[in-house]
Each structure stands twice: as structure tokens, then as C-alpha cells.
């Protein structure tokens, strides 16, 4: 699976398709993540960790169609 920020969502779709993996599960992150600081990144990780694990297990739908 891949984590893709808002601003790169279209590129994520493009790369997935051109790499022959159009259905690879993708989870959308806000943009930016880098540079937002330790605490903000920690909060984001806490917020998304469950979803990411769920997508990996197949229990949660990815954001591909979002």
C-alpha cells in the first residue's frame, strides 16, 4: 500500500496506473507532512495508524475512490 498526500494524489493515481498496479491501496494524508514538526507528525500517525493497519489487513477500505 502507499501513503499519498493531498497534493500528490493525482500523481499517485498516475504512477499506480503506469506501474501496472492501478488498484494498489492508497491512504490519503494531508499536505504537507514533512516539516510540520514532531508533535504534528506524531498526532497524524496516531490518527491514521489504525486505518493503515486496517487497509493492510483488508478490513478497511482504502481511499482509492475518494
Amino acid at each position, binding site marked *: 500500500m502507499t501513503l499519498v498526500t493531498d497534493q500528490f494524489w*493525482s500523481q499517485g493515481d498516475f504512477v499506480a496506473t503506469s506501474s501496472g498496479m492501478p488498484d494498489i491501496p492508497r491512504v490519503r494524508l494531508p499536505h504537507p507532512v514533512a516539516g510540520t514538526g514532531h508533535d504534528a507528525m506524531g498526532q497524524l500517525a496516531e490518527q491514521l495508524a489504525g486505518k493503515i493497519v486496517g487497509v493492510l489487513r483488508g478490513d478497511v477500505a482504502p481511499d482509492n475512490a475518494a
Partner: protein
Amino acid sequence: MNLLTAADEAAALELLHHTECTDGLPVVIPTRERVARMVVATGLDGDLDLGAMGPGGGAATIEKIATNAVMAGCVPDHMSVVLAAIRAMLQPEFDLGEMQGTTHSTAPLMIVNGPVTLHCNIAAGFGALGPGHRANASIGRAVRLCMMNIGGARPGVSDMALLGHPGKFSFCLAEDEASSPWEPLADSLGAAPGESTVTVLGAEAPHSTIFVNDADDPNSPQRLLRSIAAVIANTGSNNASFGAGAVAVALNPEHADVLGSAGMARADVQGELCRLATNRRGHLRQLNPGFVRPGDDDDAVRAVRRPDDVIVFVAGGSGLYSAVFPSWAAGAHHNPVVHERIVTDEACEIPFATS
């Protein structure tokens, strides 16, 4: 290949704009006849596939490249240069797909050497990277259109350059071999004397480097080298931050003469620029700590790893200004320079025609 139809050339142009097949400027409509003429000029089969162009992985067939060359305004004689540039960029170490997708402003700078520069009238002197030179503009534009229409690069979707630079329209020039105190750049990269070649580096826009020579000052050559090295080491560049990647240096004939007359060979200039283009680790750490490797703050950190990563060539009008082209310095291969022979003995003579 998919064929589009339109009522007339004006409608065809609008269709090409609408389908995002242009670079935003008007193009020559690639009619079946024009493309066929361009393919014949190559002496190659239109279906011959030179490779997959990233990031989209489109097949770079001779016919598709010819189509984009027509759109760019090329004449058949330009095709050998366009094909060589595409072949060069398809070399794995060029990392074309990654380069097209990066947020950096990199674009393929094409430096042409050899007899083909005279045959195609590729400019090397005043304003060689500016407007007014048909071959430079058309060849560079053809490569860009191939990157878009075959490689699939589209701004904000698959070409993520945050700003880009005007060299992404066209970025092609010749080396001024006649004014150079050294062997042609191509020869220094292993080409046989008299061979035509194209050398390609994914590069930023040129950074101007002012230097006033003083023939009475024995330190003039060293001052010139230090001036250029300071621009190579500019801390805004990826090279300075990553300590990797190639850089190109376009010496104008006057500046090249200062160094040549001092007895310096091209390799000497490369070595000195590599040695001098440094920043203190502590200074880099103050600016972008995330990129700095562990070490003492007083260490001199090189912007390029080795002399061969400094591509020195002669171009432009004579005067105060030379130019440095920093690079992206990233990708799996750290943005090296690539080089390809221009094959002209396969080409067919095609009468010049614009219709």
C-alpha cells in the same frame, strides 16, 4: 498510433491543445504526410521502439518521436539529434521517470557537438539558449513534447515540478568548438574525433556568473575559478545540499581563454572547480540540517563528488558572463550526465519542406 481528425488545421490545433498534447504554444499539425516524411528522414522503421519513456512508460517509437518533432517545428535534418537525445535520456542512469516526476525544476540540458551542429545550424554563441535559433528551439522542444506525449509528463499530475523553468520548453545548444581552447566536450567524454554527439544533463536554469578579467593580474584564472565554484556551491542548490550530482559550466569564449591561456586543460578546470566548490558543514547544517551528514562543522563539504561530475563546455557570446547549471542531484543514480552518438549515416535526404 491513435489518429485524431479535425475539419481543418485551426480546428486540429485547438484539438491538440484541448487534449493536452502541446506545451501550451501553437504547434505544427502532425499530418500523416508530415510525420511520414520525418520518419523517412531517419532511415529507420517507424515501429522501431527505442524504449519506454517514464513516468508513463510510453513506447518511444520512431513514428511517435517523429510526430512530436513535426509538432515542435523540426525539419527532417533535426531528427538525428532528437533521436540521439531520446536515446541518451532512455539510458537507465538518467532516471527519466523519476526526473520527470520530481518537484525540482530540472529539465534536460542538451549540448551538441560535432559536424551536425553546422549541418543543422545549432547555435553556440550569443543567446544560444534564448529565442531566435530555429534548430535549438525546435530540437529542444521536440524532446520536451516527447517527454509529455510519450513519457506522459503533465504538470501537477505526473510532472510535479513546483515551479519549473523556461528551459522546460526547450534547452538545447551546441558547444562553440571553434572558440574553445580545448578538445570538444564530446571527445573528453570518449567520442571519437569528428563524431557528432549529444550530452544531456537534467539541470536547473542557468545561473549567471560574472567575472571581469584583468590580464595584468596573475591571479585572474584563480579568481575566475573561485567565482564559478562559488556559484556551483550556492547553498540553494541540491548539489550543495546533497554533495552529489553533476553540474554543467558554460564558459563563454573569453573566460575559457583566460583558463586555456593559463595552461589549464579541461581536466584541470574540472579538478579545480570540484576542489573549490565547497561549503562548511556547519553552514549547511544551519540551513538544511536534514540533509547534512554527520561530521565536524569545520569540514569542507564538496558540492560535487568528483571532477568528472563538472561538465565544462564553451558557449555563449564573449563577455563578462559564464553560467552554471546545477542539477537535481537525486534519483537512484544521483543525476549523472549521459552521452549519445548522433547517428547520421542512417539518415535519408529529404527536401526541405514546411507544408
